[in-house]
């Protein structure tokens, strides 16, 4: 070999070595090469029979019987079959086996024995079922599906064909290990070692990768180098269809999707995927010694961690194939493992990184992390599925959220959609607001008891030799092009509806009616980190709150039937379904029934109406009074009086007054912004809240200091009405405002340094200082303190009560200020009152000490 050859040989060896290494990375190099055995424990290469996974993986190594027995994926809810308590009467369970949902739709009717026709079920659902469990007799649980990288397409098509015997073996055909000869499958001996195992490197066995999960659960693209696109096969988009979730570490701007404004979306679709957190890191085997946690129910109170673990050997022999999971509305009905998953807070300490968030604890108590950290979904999530009519490909009419056009087409513009926020029952039994997608669906019901018209019946009724029945064309083809496309297919008018109904009736179907419903799907993937999470208060706190904004359900309603809410465990569909004038259906969330009160969204309208009326009434009253004063003053001769200068207000009193006045005005202004943030978009909501809080404390401290001053100096006595002659003096003052002032009469009561307040003022201030101010301060402090002592606020009625009182009292203060400012003008000159409060000195009417009490009031009420 010359050096040149050597060079290239070494290069090839290096590449081969690298390739071997990468294989090892998946297989860890730990799993031995094992003979592929048939059901009789004979190597398949010898017997020529199909592979038996139970025998191949079982025997001395893994306890396959245990694995199948514990596997929710194999059981698929079969052991939880029930006739009652299902979302639909015609369901036979809540799990994948026997369940019915309007997205998958197919209805596998009972066989003669009353059970499910297993072969029919397997043909239809087998592609998304691992085998074993209820269909163990037909197809074994396929270990290779999750533990190898073998392409699974051959298994899927074999199951669809009904070739159950060879289904689990057929993926080997993609490796060239299995070939068809004269209609018979044949194992190629050349690929096997003498002990019946495959040549090195052909079969790599390892822990499930995200791509394994993706085969059934939705779109995963873990490569950073292959831009993410949407696969055309709808089965590969399962959870993506239901929720819009896309699991990928790719940054949105590097993806292959036509996302609107993507160049600025410099963050990954899913931060966990980005951070190399794989599916099985959260959805781990429940007896995996690395993750095992004792369930709360069986944990002694004194133990937070039980250090006794299974050995790796024990685990490898009997790995429990129940996986930690959250709670999904349409799960496998694996109720034993509901909420066994670690939640966000099991790994994350939200408390330490949310100091910027006002009312941190309040938000944590009400919101699931996902509500802010899953702001938008970019996958093609369904909005509606309409089975009342099929398109020319015999598919139901599907609408997708915020995707313009075909969701699979590369040029469809994706806007992304904000999920609807609904109360979710969490592991702790409490409601938290969490993101959901809602899918509306419509379908025909027939018979008694009513059942969905099956896909087969629909196809038979609608199509003749693959084309639409002529009656349908006649009724629906509005542009006469002999095709039914787009809106023509929608049964949103009587003609179209009746045409389809007639066709179905010819199939012998009776009692036909269109039924619509709404299915919620919880969203917990596609998490973004803090920089991209929702941080703007206005997102929820305002009239355009995402918590109250209508969530589109469909552009039309087949048969003009409004969809109904179906009860699913784990979610409260609190809100109303409605439609607009164009027939479009939507869901308007309203979480108040579930006990949520959202500032800025759930405010009581009557409180503002009442407050505004009070304010306007007083404003109108003083205006009329002012005009009357003005007119009467012009119609009479000026009164000349003697005045003397009196020092009424000392420096501290004036400072106190103006500080309080400024604080109250600013509090009213900032409070208004907080109350109606949608009208004040130019202000930062959270900043204004902070300012409001600081001002509130200034007011409180200023009030406390003033109280001390008045107590210490004895000035407080001025605020107490003197019972002696109180009624008479009050009447005198009232008469002055209602009559005397127009006649130019002198003020009825003397105003001196020791008697600054008239009886009406004394009463007013008693109310303000003893009721309104304390109420405002207490409610304000409690609202501010919600994040510190939520318990106290809760006992006092919580935010709904506190916020209501705070708002009403604010209106009262605003009203008081109008009155207060107006009455300052009732001195001897209109500006005298204000001047005296600035300078301290006032010109007071000189008076003799006769019966008629006199002297001006610079300031009143």
């Amino acid at each position, binding site marked *: 070999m010359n050096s040149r050859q050597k060079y290239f040989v070494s290069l090839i060896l290096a590449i081969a070595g690298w390739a071997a290494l990468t294989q090892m990375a998946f297989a860890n190099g730990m799993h031995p090469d094992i003979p592929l055995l048939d059901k009789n424990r004979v190597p398949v290469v010898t017997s020529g029979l199909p592979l038996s996974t139970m025998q191949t993986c079982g025997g001395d190594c893994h306890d396959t019987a245990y694995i199948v027995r514990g596997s929710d994926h194999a059981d698929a809810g079969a052991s939880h079959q029930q006739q009652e308590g299902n979302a639909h009467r015609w369901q036979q369970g809540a799990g994948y086996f026997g369940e019915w949902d309007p997205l998958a739709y197919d209805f596998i009717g009972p066989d003669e024995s009353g059970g499910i026709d297993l072969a029919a079920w397997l043909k239809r659902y087998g592609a998304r079922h691992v085998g074993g469990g209820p269909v163990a007799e037909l197809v074994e649980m396929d270990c290779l599906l999750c533990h190898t990288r073998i392409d699974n397409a051959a298994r899927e098509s074999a199951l669809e064909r009904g070739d159950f015997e060879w289904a689990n073996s057929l993926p080997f055909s993609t490796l060239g290990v299995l070939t068809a000869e004269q209609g018979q499958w044949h194992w190629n001996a050349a690929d096997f070692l003498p002990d019946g195992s495959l040549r090195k490197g052909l079969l790599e066995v390892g822990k499930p990768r995200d791509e394994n999960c993706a085969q059934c659960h939705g779109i995963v693209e873990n490569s950073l180098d292959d831009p993410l696109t949407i696969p055309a096969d709808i089965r590969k988009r399962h959870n993506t269809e239901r929720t819009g979730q896309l699991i990928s570490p790719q940054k949105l701007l590097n993806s292959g999707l036509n996302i609107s404004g993507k160049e600025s979306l410099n963050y990954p679709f899913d931060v966990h995927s980005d951070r190399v957190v794989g599916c099985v890191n959260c959805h781990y085997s429940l007896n995996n010694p690395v993750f095992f946690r004792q369930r709360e129910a069986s944990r002694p109170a004194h133990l937070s961690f039980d250090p006794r673990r299974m050995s790796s050997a024990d685990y490898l022999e009997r790995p429990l194939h129940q996986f930690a999971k959250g709670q999904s509305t349409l799960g496998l009905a694996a109720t034993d493992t509901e909420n066994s998953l670690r939640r966000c807070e099991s790994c994350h300490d939200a408390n330490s990184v949310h100091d910027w968030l006002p009312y941190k604890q309040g938000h944590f108590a009400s919101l699931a992390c996902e509500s802010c950290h899953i702001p938008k979904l970019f996958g093609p999530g369904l909005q509606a599925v309409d089975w009342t009519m099929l398109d020319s490909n015999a598919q139901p009419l599907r609408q997708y959220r915020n995707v313009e056009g075909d969701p699979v087409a590369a040029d469809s513009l994706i806007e992304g959609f904000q999920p609807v926020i609904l109360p979710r029952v969490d592991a702790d039994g409490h409601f938290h607001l969490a993101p959901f997608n809602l899918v509306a669906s419509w379908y025909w019901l027939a018979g008694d008891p009513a059942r969905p018209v099956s896909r087969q019946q629909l196809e038979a009724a609608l199509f003749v030799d693959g084309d639409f029945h002529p009656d349908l064309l006649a009724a629906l083809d509005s542009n006469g092009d002999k095709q039914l496309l787009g809106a023509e297919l929608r049964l949103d008018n009587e003609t179209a509806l009746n045409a389809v109904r007639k066709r179905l009736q010819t199939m012998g179907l009776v009692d036909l009616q269109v039924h619509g419903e709404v299915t919620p799907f919880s969203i917990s993937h596609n998490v973004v980190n803090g920089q991209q999470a929702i941080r703007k208060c206005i997102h929820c706190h305002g009239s355009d709150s995402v918590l109250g904004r209508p969530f589109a359900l469909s552009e039309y309603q087949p048969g003009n039937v409004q969809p109904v809410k179906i009860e699913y465990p784990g979610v409260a569909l609190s809100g109303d379904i409605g439609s607009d004038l164009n027939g479009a259906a939507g869901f308007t969330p309203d979480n108040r029934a579930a006990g949520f009160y959202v500032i800025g969204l759930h405010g009581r309208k009557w409180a503002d109406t009442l407050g505004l009326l009070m304010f306007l009434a007083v404003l109108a009253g003083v205006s009329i009074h002012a005009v009357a004063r003005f007119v009467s003053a012009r119609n009479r001769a000026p009164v000349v009086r003697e005045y003397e*200068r009196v020092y009424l207000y000392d420096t501290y009193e004036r400072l106190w007054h103006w500080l309080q006045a400024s604080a109250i005005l600013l509090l009213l202004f900032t409070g208004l912004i907080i109350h109606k943030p949608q009208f004040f978009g130019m202000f930062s909501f959270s900043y204004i809240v902070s300012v409001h809080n600081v*001002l509130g404390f200034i007011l409180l401290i200023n009030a406390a200091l003033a109280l001390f001053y008045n107590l210490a100096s004895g000035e407080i006595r001025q605020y107490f009405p003197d019972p002696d002659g109180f009624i008479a003096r009050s009447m005198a003052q009232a008469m002055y405002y209602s009559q005397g002032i127009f006649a130019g009469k002198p003020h009825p009561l003397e105003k001196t340094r020791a008697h600054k307040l008239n009886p009406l003022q004394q009463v007013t201030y008693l109310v303000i200082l003893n009721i309104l101010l304390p109420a405002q301060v207490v409610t304000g402090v409690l609202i501010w303190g919600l994040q510190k002592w939520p318990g106290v606020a809760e006992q006092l009625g919580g935010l709904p009560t506190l916020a209501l009182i705070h708002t009403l009292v604010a209106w009262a203060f605003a009203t008081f200020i109008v009155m207060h400012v107006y009455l300052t003008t009732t001195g001897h000159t209109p500006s005298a009152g204000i001047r005296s409060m600035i300078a301290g000195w006032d010109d007071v009417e000189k008076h003799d000490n006769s019966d008629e009490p006199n002297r001006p009031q610079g300031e009143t009420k």
Partner: protein
Amino acid sequence: MKMSKRQWLPGLVAILFLLGLPVWYFTSVEETVLDAPWENMPKRAAHVDHKDLFNGDFKTGQQVTAACLGCHKEAGEQVLHTAHWRWQADPVEIEGREGLFATGKKNTINNFCIGIQGNWAACTACHTGYGWQDEKFDFENTANIDCLVCHDNSGTYRKGAAGLPLEGVDLLAAAKSVAVPSRENCGGCHFRGGGGNAVKHGDLDESLYYPTGEVDVHMGRYDFKCVDCHQTKDHVIGGRSISVSVDNKNQIACTDCHNARLHTDQRINAHTDTLACQTCHIPEVAVRQATKTHWDWSTAGDAGKEEDQHHYLKIKGSFIYQKNLRPEYRWYNGLADRYLLGDPVNTGGSTPMNAPKGDIRDPDARIWPFKIHRAKQPYDTELEYLLQPVTSGKGGYWKEFDWDSALRLGADATGLPYSGEYGFAATEMFWPQTHMVAPKERALQCQACHAENGRMDWRALGYDGDPIKQGSQSRKRAPGIEHRAEGADHE
């Protein structure tokens, strides 16, 4: 009653003060500035227009130099001390060797065209001087300095053999155009290292004359010139590369302008103890044009083989070029070892020409991206060291295709004995990648290294395995690195 200003103004001030101060104090949020690179960028000085300063009829480059030095009196002396002139650094110690070593292009070899000794005239076309054609060149003579190669801004100045201006170059026009060095001045030599565009560096090629932001964020998106980073003092240009230097004095770093911990993500900031900025921010090099990654001299001289400058040339042998090259990763503390003439060759494997120093225990080392150029080049099978052939010169391999004669001539030039027996040995040369910084949205993400089949060979780097799962205890045991409790990584 009359009020004077004196009465209400202090009150107003007091109120504003009493309200404003607490509001300001309690609502002010400290804005932490994570990164302010522009504050560290010196302003480009306006250059004096030299258009009217020359009127002579320049016949030679030296005449232009004389004119320059007439005004810039210190410049000549300054240039005499630069690596661009001497092609040799100041003597420094090399760890693991006795004595001081002044290394540089002048006296060391690489695994591209190997060495300049005996090949002077061809190599010194890129020398900042005139007339270096043999070992007798006078490095103390300022008259032979080439000012124009760096300062010509006319774009028409070209040099040929021994660094002399080519026939027909308008020296007067070049002289009138002089200014701060442009991308073309630097790129003329540095983008074409190794004998052609994009051959040598991987991260430097002619796509950087007018790059988009995708190719190089500094030069493309922000219009940097080379000298914005490679700042110059007394004609000594900042920056160092271990292709010729062994120390890291006068080095340039990202952190000259950028804050070392500028990421909002704590996890990413923690990586800066371990990774060079370049590691994540240069996901690939040779972005527009393929660079040479393999060169096999042993196949040269085959007249029957089809020639193509990216695969085979009779004079040079066979090559592999790669575009969008993913760097390889090694620990590197800024220093490098250096293969010096006469050093033993590793006949059992590959001989590194300039192995970067540092390992997982070295607190100053970071994992860096490298282009590793792998070659087969002639060595003395008896004496077991690499040989330096004469290739371009008289009687050189490129004319005669006779290795024995080329190596004998080379031995005469270098003074290193040649036994007469030669073979070809595998060598590696390390090129730290630091240009072609990608825009931040293209920076590496976790999965690039921490997923299966990631970029890092963790065990080769000294880790127990992917530190995301195995922890990074071996790094933490390094002296000078903050020690954290064992197992803390697993929490």
